[in-house]
C-alpha cells in the first residue's frame, strides 16, 4: 500500500529539489549559450564591417583604374567630384555603384548647395560599421559620421601646448608644439626606412606623405593632398595599409565638422573636409581617449578638467590631436584594415608597434606582412 502510494506520487509531481536541479541545469545552459549568441551577433557585425571596407577599397581601386592615381584625401580647390573639398570616401562611393547620392551631389554644383538642399549629410549604410552604436539617430548631425578613414601612415602631430606627444618618436621626428611643419628628424631614427612626415599629415608634397593619403587644406586654402600612384607604393600594395576603422565619438574633426544650427553641427559630414583622411599608425590600435562632447567643448590646451580631460591622463585628452587620430574599433582585440591591394584583414591591437609603422608607411623599404 505504502509502496503503491509512493509510486503514484513520484509519477504526478516533482519534488522541490528536483525542480531546483532542473532550473539550475537550464540556467547553466542558458548561461553558456547567451555569450555564444552575443558573440555570433558581433561576428556577423564584424563581417559586414569587413565587407564595407572591402567595397570602399575597391572603390579606390576603380578610381585608380580610371585616373591612374589613388583618390586624394580631399582637395579644397577645383570643382566636384574630385575638388570642392569632397572626401575620398565620397569619391569612392561614386565608383562602387552607389551613384544615386554621388550624382545628386555632383549635380548640385558644390557641397554647400548639397547641404542646403538637404542631400548632405546623409546616412549611408556603407560608411558606418554596425558594431559602432554611436549617433545612429535620425538628426542631421547624427548622419555626418563615418567609421572608415584613409591611412596617413606614421605621421607626426604637433599637440597643443601642455599636451604630451607620447608616440611622436615613431614618426622619427621631434615635434614642436603647435607648429605645422616638418619636424626636425631624430638621428638615428626610431624606425629606419622613412623620415619625419609633415605635421598632421597636411601636405601637398608626396615626399612628406608617409601613408596612402594626405590631408588636404581646409576651405579657403587651395591645396589638395598629393596624387599617389601605384608606383609610389614602393613596399608593395599587399604590405601597405590603405583604409582603417575609427570611432567617430573620439574624432574631434568628425564631431565638430560644419557649422552650428540649433545646437547641431551641420555640414557635408563624411562627404567633405579633411577629417576623413586622418588615420595614423603612430598611435597604437584602439588607444582609447576621453570621449568628445557632442556640443563643442572649449578648444583649448590640455588642462586636466572635466570638460576636455575627465580621465586626468593628458595622453588621453580630447584636445590632444596627437593621440586622437589613431585607428579604433569596437571589435574585441583589434580593428579591420584594408590594404592597398584591396584585401581586408583584422589586425590585433597587440601587434608589434614597429611592424605596425612599416605596414602604415608606403615606402620604408621594409616588407612587412600582417602577423597571424
Amino acid at each position, binding site marked *: 500500500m505504502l509502496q503503491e502510494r509512493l509510486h503514484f506520487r513520484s509519477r504526478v509531481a516533482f519534488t522541490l*529539489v528536483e525542480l*531546483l*536541479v532542473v532550473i*539550475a541545469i537550464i540556467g*547553466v545552459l542558458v*548561461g553558456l549559450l547567451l*555569450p555564444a549568441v552575443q558573440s555570433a551577433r558581433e561576428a556577423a557585425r564584424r563581417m559586414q564591417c569587413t565587407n564595407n571596407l572591402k567595397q570602399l577599397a575597391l572603390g579606390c581601386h576603380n578610381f585608380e583604374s580610371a585616373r591612374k592615381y589613388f583618390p586624394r584625401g580631399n582637395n579644397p580647390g577645383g570643382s566636384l567630384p574630385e575638388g570642392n573639398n569632397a572626401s575620398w570616401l565620397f569619391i569612392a562611393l561614386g565608383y562602387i555603384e552607389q551613384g544615386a547620392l554621388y550624382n545628386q551631389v555632383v549635380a548640385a554644383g558644390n557641397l554647400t548647395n548639397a547641404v542646403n538642399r538637404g542631400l548632405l549629410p546623409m546616412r549611408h549604410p556603407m560608411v558606418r560599421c554596425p558594431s559602432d552604436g554611436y549617433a545612429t539617430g535620425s538628426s542631421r548631425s547624427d548622419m555626418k559620421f563615418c567609421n572608415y578613414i584613409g591611412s596617413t601612415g606614421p605621421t607626426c602631430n*604637433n*599637440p*597643443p*601646448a*601642455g*599636451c*604630451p*606627444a*607620447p*608616440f611622436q*618618436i615613431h614618426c622619427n621626428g*621631434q615635434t*614642436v*608644439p*603647435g*607648429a*605645422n611643419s616638418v619636424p626636425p628628424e*631624430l*638621428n*638615428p631614427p*626610431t624606425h629606419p626606412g622613412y623620415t619625419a612626415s609633415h605635421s*598632421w599629415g597636411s601636405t601637398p608634397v608626396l615626399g612628406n606623405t608617409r601613408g596612402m593619403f594626405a590631408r588636404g587644406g*581646409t576651405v579657403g586654402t587651395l591645396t589638395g593632398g598629393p596624387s599617389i600612384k601605384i608606383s609610389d607604393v614602393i613596399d608593395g600594395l599587399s604590405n601597405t595599409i590603405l583604409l582603417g576603422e575609427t570611432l567617430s565619438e573620439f574624432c*574631434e*574633426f568628425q564631431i*565638430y565638422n560644419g557649422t552650428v544650427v540649433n545646437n547641431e553641427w551641420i555640414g557635408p559630414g563624411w562627404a567633405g573636409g579633411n577629417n576623413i583622411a586622418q588615420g595614423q599608425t603612430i598611435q*597604437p590600435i*584602439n588607444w*582609447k581617449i576621453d570621449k568628445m562632447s557632442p556640443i*563643442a567643448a*572649449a*578648444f*583649448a*590646451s*590640455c*588642462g586636466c578638467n572635466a570638460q576636455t580631460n575627465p*580621465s586626468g*591622463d*593628458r*595622453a*588621453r585628452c580630447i*584636445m590632444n*590631436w596627437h593621440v586622437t587620430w589613431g585607428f579604433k574599433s569596437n571589435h574585441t582585440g583589434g580593428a579591420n584594415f584594408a590594404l592597398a591591394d584591396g584585401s581586408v584583414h583584422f589586425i590585433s*591591437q*597587440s601587434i*608589434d*608597434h*614597429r*611592424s605596425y609603422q612599416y605596414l602604415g608607411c608606403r615606402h620604408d623599404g621594409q616588407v612587412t606582412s600582417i602577423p597571424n
Partner: protein
Amino acid sequence: MKKILLFLVLLAIVGCKEKSGTVPVQGIVKLDGQPLKDAAVQFVPQGTGRDATATTDANGKFVMSTFEPRDGAMPGSYKVVITSLGNVEATPTNVSADQAMAAASAAAAKAKANAGSQVPVAYTRLDKTPLKQDVPAIGEIVFDIKSK
C-alpha cells in the same frame, strides 16, 4: 548544490576575465631631487612590443598605461624618455579645431621655451636617453634626473 552553482559562477567570472598581459608599473620622477610635475614618461620597448605612457602628477608620481588607463606595461626591457610639458596655461577658447590649430601654432615657440627649460635634451630623446627599465619592476621606480 549551492556549492556547485557558486563554483560555476566563479568559473564563469575567471573564464571571462581578459588577459592583456600587462603588469602594474608606477614610480616617481625627480629633477635634482625635487619631484617633477607635468612630465611625460614613455617606455619604449627595446625589442618588439608596445609603448607604455604616463604623465606625472603634482607630486611627480606616475602610473604607466598600455591598453587601458593605468593598466601598467608588458613585461620586457624598455628605454625611458622623459619630457617636460612646460606650463599648462589656459589658452583662449577657439570656436573650431582649425582655429585652435592656428592658435597653437602661434603659441608654439613660447611652449617650446617653457618645455625646454626643465629637462635636459638627453632625457627627451630616444637615441640619447641613459634611462632604462625592466618590467616587471620591483617596488616603486625612481627616475632621478639631473638638470646638468
